[in-house]
């Protein structure tokens, strides 16, 4: 890996040298690191120890942006309420080296790498990238600055992951990045049109544990199909997106909840009896596919499964062609709200699908997603930790900060996207979802007042939900009511009742065989699954053939490679 990147860089700089000499024009910028800048404006606060002592530092950053960040007119990613606050608090001057959306950002990172000049601070998306940067000695060791500068609260956030978060970014006992955290997101929830169930006088979940069996799920879908309470043409029982399963436990528009209920964990690496296995190749997965194939055969499953896109399924729901779907706890906020926009009577109930012994299978997420790295050339690596302190500790815990910077408070109220923060990653404690929900619920029950609710987000959730419950018909309130009281409420209940059965998967780094063969194996998996579900292939034969193909086309090697990685 090391050689590969070096070759890239060498070839790049050689070509650059040639081209520059050809055009006889050695243009431009100095490549040295940004040192202290000329401005000697007095430091405004004494809150941070190091901050007040140093001169204004120019920080060149790589920023991953989001479409529709909702910045007020005149504000940009480089100059907005968040950056202004950071610049003032930390006595720095933020200059964006490059900005781009999603994948385009990754490309800019690669280009910066090949040009041999990475920004002082930037975000990288994957552990593979982080590892490459580390092996090529381009990023700074943050162990000391983390120990020295990280506030107790920030440390507590990382500690809430039981060391898993920092372990991901630690190489040879050195912390090489400030990671974004990635808390567990819960199961893939079954969302059922409860207004339809009421109008048909249906009852499910008699024992009130918020869990339904696969049979109950089938009954709901069948009844909806027969009675067609939505009065739609071309009624569909259950619709799935073309990828059918997901590697995320909460996979939206997938059959994950059914698979998990049958103890199958598609697209997941985990150990069983000391052996590493790939969830999509297990006997349990075969059973899950057999269920879907039976649905297809009985006409319960959408006949067009395999060609449905994301938008198609949203459309099926919005048209009232189907009233059952699967997804993560927050889909009411950004997907199901489309259904409310079409039909103001739409209500959804959230259920989990239970296993034969009444448990709900779920798996842990990897503790990190997204990594802030600091260039080795940068003289003030502590700034990245100070930024993290500012945004994830002080901004969350110190109300006086919002009073000093009212425009930041206004941003939070208006829902300006978090990616406009100079640290555009999420760092939240492992339990933040349920803690926030606890406060929201306490507030709704009148146990605490709105002012006692800590986060701005939960405050606005409270306001939206109360308005909705008072009958305002507010769409945001509808969404928050469903996502929080429905989605998170379900996760809270399953946690309280101890219904969850957690799987801790293995999260492998991309191995060399994966680099060459994984795309094909994924294609093999998805194509075979579609064929099995639609009855083109026999469940038994088709699946066994797939497993042996999967193994011979690199699967076995990959398992060996990952096992090696783990030890």
């Amino acid at each position, binding site marked *: 890996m090391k050689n590969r990147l070096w070759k890239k860089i060498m070839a790049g700089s050689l070509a*650059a040298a040639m081209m520059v000499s050809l055009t006889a024009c050695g243009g431009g910028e100095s490549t040295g690191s940004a040192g202290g800048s000329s401005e000697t404006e007095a430091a405004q606060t004494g809150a941070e120890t190091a901050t007040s002592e140093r001169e204004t530092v120019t920080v060149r950053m790589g920023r991953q942006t989001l479409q529709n960040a909702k910045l007020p007119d005149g504000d940009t990613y480089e100059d907005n309420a968040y950056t202004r606050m950071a610049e003032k608090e930390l006595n720095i001057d933020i200059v964006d080296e*490059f900005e781009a959306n999603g994948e385009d950002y990754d*490309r800019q990172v690669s280009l910066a790498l090949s040009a041999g000049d990475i920004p002082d601070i930037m975000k990288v998306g994957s552990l593979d990238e982080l590892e490459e940067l580390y092996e090529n000695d381009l990023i700074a060791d943050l162990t000391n600055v983390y120990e020295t500068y990280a506030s107790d609260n920030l440390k507590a956030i990382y500690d809430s992951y039981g060391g898993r978060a920092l372990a991901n970014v630690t190489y040879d006992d050195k912390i090489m990045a400030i990671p974004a955290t990635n808390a567990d997101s819960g199961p893939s929830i079954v969302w059922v049109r409860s207004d339809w169930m009421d109008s048909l006088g249906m009852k499910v979940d008699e024992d009130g544990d918020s869990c339904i069996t696969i049979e109950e799920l089938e009954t709901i879908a069948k009844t909806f199909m027969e009675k067609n309470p939505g009065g739609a043409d071309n009624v569909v029982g259950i619709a799935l997106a073309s990828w059918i399963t997901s590697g995320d436990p909460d996979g939206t528009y997938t059959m994950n909840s059914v698979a998990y209920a049958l103890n199958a964990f598609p697209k997941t690496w985990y150990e069983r009896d000391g052996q590493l296995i790939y969830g999509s190749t297990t006997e349990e997965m075969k059973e899950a596919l057999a269920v879907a194939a039976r649905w297809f055969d009985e006409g319960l499953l959408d006949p067009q499964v395999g060609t449905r896109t994301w938008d198609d399924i949203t459309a099926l729901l919005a048209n009232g062609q189907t009233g059952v779907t699967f997804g993560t706890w927050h889909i009411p906020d950004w997907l199901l709200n489309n259904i409310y926009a079409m039909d103001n009577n739409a209500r959804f109930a959230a259920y989990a699908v239970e296993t034969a012994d009444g448990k709900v299978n779920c798996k842990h997420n990897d503790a990190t997603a997204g990594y802030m790295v600091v260039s080795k050339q940068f003289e003030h690596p502590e700034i990245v930790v100070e930024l993290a302190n500012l945004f994830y500790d002080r901004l969350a815990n110190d109300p006086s900060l919002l009073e000093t910077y009212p425009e930041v408070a206004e941003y939070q109220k208006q829902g300006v996207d978090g990616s406009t923060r100079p640290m555009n990653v999420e760092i939240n404690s492992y339990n933040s979802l349920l803690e926030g929900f606890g406060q929201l619920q306490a507030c709704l029950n009148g146990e605490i007042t709105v002012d006692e609710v800590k986060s701005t987000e939960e405050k606005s959730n409270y306001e939206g939900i109360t308005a909705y419950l008072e009958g305002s018909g507010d769409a945001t309130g509808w969404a928050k009511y469903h996502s929080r009281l429905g989605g998170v409420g379900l996760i809270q209940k399953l946690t309280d009742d101890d219904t969850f059965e957690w799987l801790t998967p293995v999260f492998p780094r991309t191995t060399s065989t994966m680099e060459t063969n994984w795309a094909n194996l994924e294609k093999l998996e998805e194509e075979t699954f579609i064929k099995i579900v639609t009855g083109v292939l026999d469940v038994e034969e088709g699946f066994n053939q797939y497993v042996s193909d999967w193994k011979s086309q690199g699967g076995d090697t990959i398992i060996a490679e990952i096992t090696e990685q783990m030890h």
Partner: protein
Amino acid sequence: MIDNKSVGSRVRIRVTYGIVFLLGLICLLPLLNILSISLSSSAAVSANRVGLLPVDFTVAAYRKIIDDSQFWKSFGISVTRVILALILNLAVTVPMAYPLTKSVREFKARNIYMNLLIFAMLFNGGMIPTFILVRNLGLLNTIWALILPGALPIFNVILLMNFFLGIPHSLEEAAIIDGANPFQVLLRILIPCAKPCIATVSLFSIVGSWNDFFSGLIYIQKPEKYPIMTYIQSLSVDIQELLKSGASVNALENVTELSNRNLNAAKIVVAVIPLLLIYPFLQRYLITGIVMGSVKE
């Protein structure tokens, strides 16, 4: 003529027209669909109810575009880019093509230049070296980064060169006998004769720089400086990827609010208008331009 048309040939013509008509439809229908989507209510669009005709006709999306400052900024950048690129392209294509029409006897280094051109047409530095070059020249985030790398369209040079070769040589000789120098020959004789071909290469240049979104993604590192097609490209969102990358709920809300197919369709429609306006004027030259340029004596 009419006598020559047997029943068989008439049937053949009908069938050919039928096929051409179908092919035309294949090109036209998606455009029509985008147009109807842009003119439908966004609820109808998200319910997949819009086909070839607008459902719940509304121009709300177009009203929204009027207020979208970034759209117009990018639009302006693209217009400037197209004009600058066109001027620059013609300014280098024409003087490059003319000397290359001379024989090796008249212009000794002709073949060296020709081979260099062909070499550069077939091989180029690739994305990363070109990026580093543009970066070291200090062109990143300027409009020149979008124009200069494509300033000399070699294909157009060859097209124009062949067109020049197709113009009767005696015209040029007559001018020389009358005392014209090479510049006068080019300006007074060849360029007026080559108008169809110049119109064609202009069209290529305009369409090429208007539609190009990729160089914007590479060389422009601030979204507010994106040209129009890069801007439109950046509106497409891969929600699945976003979910995987651990995006916050707030981010998902903001993004899905934007992934408004109805508004995006309207943006596409507005962005195509300039080309639709230019095409009819230049299109009549297109066939003569290319065909004449492709044969030489």
